[in-house]
């Protein structure tokens, strides 16, 4: 799991959109599963990448079941198989089957977020991308979701690109952390090394989150 860390406007979301061909690089190329995004059929590429956004980005006029089953359904899965798959991913994200018939507005924020993750998993993509996925949740639900998502990832072993501006989240979830600033990649390090990095920007992040400047701690 790679975490893209950076402040607003640093290019995290742009990076994600380059991965699923919502944006095309003006220079160079983005390689996904061994092929350039410019050579992929954009629709097929996007269906092979699970995508989660804040609040789940659920379709308000669809039930949970239709939301989750959307990609399999338009990909031509049989109804019975879609139905089964929906039950399966609901339990994967720790939701009760009974919620399948509800509309997104009838769910709590945490449940919506889980449905968002379930929807991304539905077609069993090899890659998951999450854009500030847990950003809108209250701190407790958020921390629950983070822990569960980490366990989920340990079971699933998918390629995950996770965008956040929260260092704590980055350290908790990331195998690697890439720090972006004004569209540039500052560092891309394994999580453990990231913490020890002497890069001034990394230090600034660590300080901002611990709240205590390193110099004072040492003194």
């Amino acid at each position: 799991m790679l975490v893209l860390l950076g402040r607003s406007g640093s290019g995290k979301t742009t990076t994600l959109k380059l991965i699923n061909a919502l944006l095309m690089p003006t220079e160079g190329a983005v390689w996904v599963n061994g092929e350039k995004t410019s050579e992929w059929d954009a629709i097929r590429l996007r269906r092979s990448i699970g995508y989660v956004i804040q609040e789940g980005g659920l379709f308000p006029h669809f039930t949970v079941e239709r939301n989750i089953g959307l990609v399999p359904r338009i990909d031509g899965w049989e109804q019975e198989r879609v139905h089964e798959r929906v039950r399966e991913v609901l339990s994967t994200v720790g939701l009760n089957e009974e919620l399948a018939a509800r509309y997104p507005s009838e769910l709590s924020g945490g449940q919506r977020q889980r449905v968002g993750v379930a929807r991304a998993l539905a077609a069993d993509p090899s890659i998951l991308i999450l854009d500030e996925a847990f950003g809108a949740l209250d701190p407790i639900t958020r921390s629950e979701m983070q822990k569960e998502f980490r366990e989920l990832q340990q079971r699933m072993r998918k390629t995950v690109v996770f965008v956040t501006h929260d260092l704590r989240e980055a350290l908790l979830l990331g195998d690697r952390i890439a720090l972006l600033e004004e569209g540039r990649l500052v560092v891309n390090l394994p999580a453990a090394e990231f913490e020890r990095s002497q890069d001034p920007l990394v230090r600034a992040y660590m300080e901002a989150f611990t709240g205590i400047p390193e110099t004072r701690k040492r003194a």
Partner: protein
Amino acid sequence: MNFWHFLMANRQQVLELTIEHITLAGIATLLAAVVGIPLGILITRVRALNKPVLGGANVIQTIPSLALFGFLLPAPWIGERAGRLAILALALYALLPLIRNTYAGIRSVDPAVVEAGRAMGLTDRQLLFQVELPLASGVIVAGLRIAAVVTIGLATIAAAIGAGGLGEFIFRGLAMVNNQVILAGAVPAAALALVVDFALGVVERRLGTLRVG
């Protein structure tokens, strides 16, 4: 003879003219919907067409209705029959609310939801039919409601060119300086507009609640 007596005495004719009125207004509204809704969708996709289409529909609205009937008179096929002429003119008037509401409805769909759909790999077509149109349907029906009510009112003028409808009574009453006869046309026309307004209002609310869940 009071209004009710006149209405009852002429109920056969009132019924016929009402049916004629419904037919005129109904076909015109339907025609406007068939043209206006796709046009409204089109201008959300092709931004350059936005101003000319909405501007054009606006200009049509400013033409006095009697004058529009006159303008269309020399048109081939259309001008031959009063009914066709009336339907076309009414449909032109009904275009604006339909185009505008379709456009506004689609534009009002949460961009995050549309973006999510696109990122999940929905084609433009699937995005339109499964996400944008269902979510815009309440606003589109609101446009249809305005169009239908305006058309029912305006259709009374169709009688001026001999296309029939409840306007017959109104024009006849005006010529005879007889209020009862005018009311015999005006009251059923107003009642018709109210009924349609109410019915489409119910549909609109249904779709509105669907939108929020």
